[in-house]
């Protein structure tokens, strides 16, 4: 499949103020290409919202609304219901317009989890995309429940007594899958065709769908900006961020190599892990091995 089959129209216009080499901006750009024009985007407060919407300008080429930090899924529910009611009453024709909620890991795993859970349970017809850069990056790299074990952040800093984040990353796709929604998937900008096809799949779902996209942040992860594609590739190849789908409750691995690369390949090129001992790294390796085995077990059901 040639990359020229990818839509060339930019719906997230250049001129936005994301950092040099921002993985999240890239992910948003990729997602928007596959979404097309017939969408309404509901965005949480966060990096992407700030870099794209300074009054009176906007980087967005599609209808877009930002209100607060933790209510993305709730606002999306309201937009979806509004379109549904207006279409049914014959006042508008928005039957094919898709509502797409976009939020970061903080706005999804922490402060936004309640609204997300509620919207999923109610079964609204929308896509929720979590752009996971693994911390509250916009406010200065503070930890979230999606920050990986051992990463240093400003509120879980590595120090004499601490190794950085002491908890393991919340498994958001699993939490979402537990709501029994039609479609859950993880994706990564380095595997762009996989990402594009998952967005298109989500567009066709009637009901809630969820995409969890790893979004490398060179500023917060302390890595070279030109290296973010390689890093996100390694995240998948080491099993740290597996690419999989849960379609109607059935698990399917999209990337299933014969052997995973060692996690140290991924960890050692990021400054946020620089302080980790060999012990900590082997602990991470152990956890990744366990999680990978469990995930593979789920795919066999």
């Amino acid at each position, binding site marked *: 499949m*040639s*990359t020229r089959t990818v839509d060339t129209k930019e719906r997230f*216009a250049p001129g936005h103020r994301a950092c040099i080499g921002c993985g999240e901006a890239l992910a948003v750009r990729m997602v928007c290409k596959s979404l097309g024009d017939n969408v309404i985007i509901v965005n949480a407060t966060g990096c992407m919202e700030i870099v794209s919407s300074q*009054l*009176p300008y906007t980087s967005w080429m599609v209808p877009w609304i930002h209100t607060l930090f933790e209510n993305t899924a709730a606002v999306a529910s309201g937009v979806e219901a509004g379109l549904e009611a207006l279409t049914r009453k014959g006042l508008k024709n928005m039957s094919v317009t898709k509502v797409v909620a976009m939020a970061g890991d903080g706005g999804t795993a922490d402060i936004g989890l309640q609204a997300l859970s509620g919207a999923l349970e109610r079964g609204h017809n929308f896509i929720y995309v979590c752009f996971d850069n693994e911390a509250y990056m916009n406010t200065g790299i503070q930890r979230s429940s999606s920050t990986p074990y051992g990463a240093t952040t400003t509120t879980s800093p590595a120090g004499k007594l601490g190794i950085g984040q002491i908890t393991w990353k919340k498994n958001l796709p699993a939490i979402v899958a537990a709501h029994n929604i039609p479609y859950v998937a993880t994706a990564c900008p380095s595997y762009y065709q996989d990402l594009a096809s998952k967005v298109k799949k989500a567009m066709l779902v009637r009901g809630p769908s969820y995409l969890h996209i790893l979004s490398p942040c060179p500023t917060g992860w302390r890595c070279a900006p030109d290296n973010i*594609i390689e890093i996100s590739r390694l995240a998948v190849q080491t099993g740290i961020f597996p690419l999989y789908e849960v379609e109607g409750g059935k698990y399917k691995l999209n990337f299933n190599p014969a052997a995973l690369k060692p996690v140290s390949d991924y960890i050692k090129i990021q400054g946020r892990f620089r302080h980790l001992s060999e012990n900590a790294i082997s602990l991470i390796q152990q956890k990744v091995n366990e999680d990978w085995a469990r995930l593979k077990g789920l795919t066999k059901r």
Partner: protein
Amino acid sequence: MAKSTNKAKTAKPPKPDDQLTWKELEIGSIATRPGSASRYKTGDWSSRQPEYDLSKCIKCALCQTFCPEGCVKSTDEGFYAADLYYCKGCGICAKECPRKVITMVEEKE
């Protein structure tokens, strides 16, 4: 050449925020010109820019795929080039190019 961003660059820009009066704000401060932020020259941020050895280019468009700015456009010959108005000089295109077509060099004036 993509037309929309060129138009945004050259079109009469909306007044900058520190000159707008309260009467000139739309209801609820809604921004009604899609892509209007494209007037912002993020190319000023960069300290380096991509240089192309097109003899090696196989026109795979991976540089366009991986650009976080979305500023890599196809040329008339079907090659690809970053729009320096927006290019922040991150170097992802140079790193990911499978044929090493692109080198990041010091920014030229």
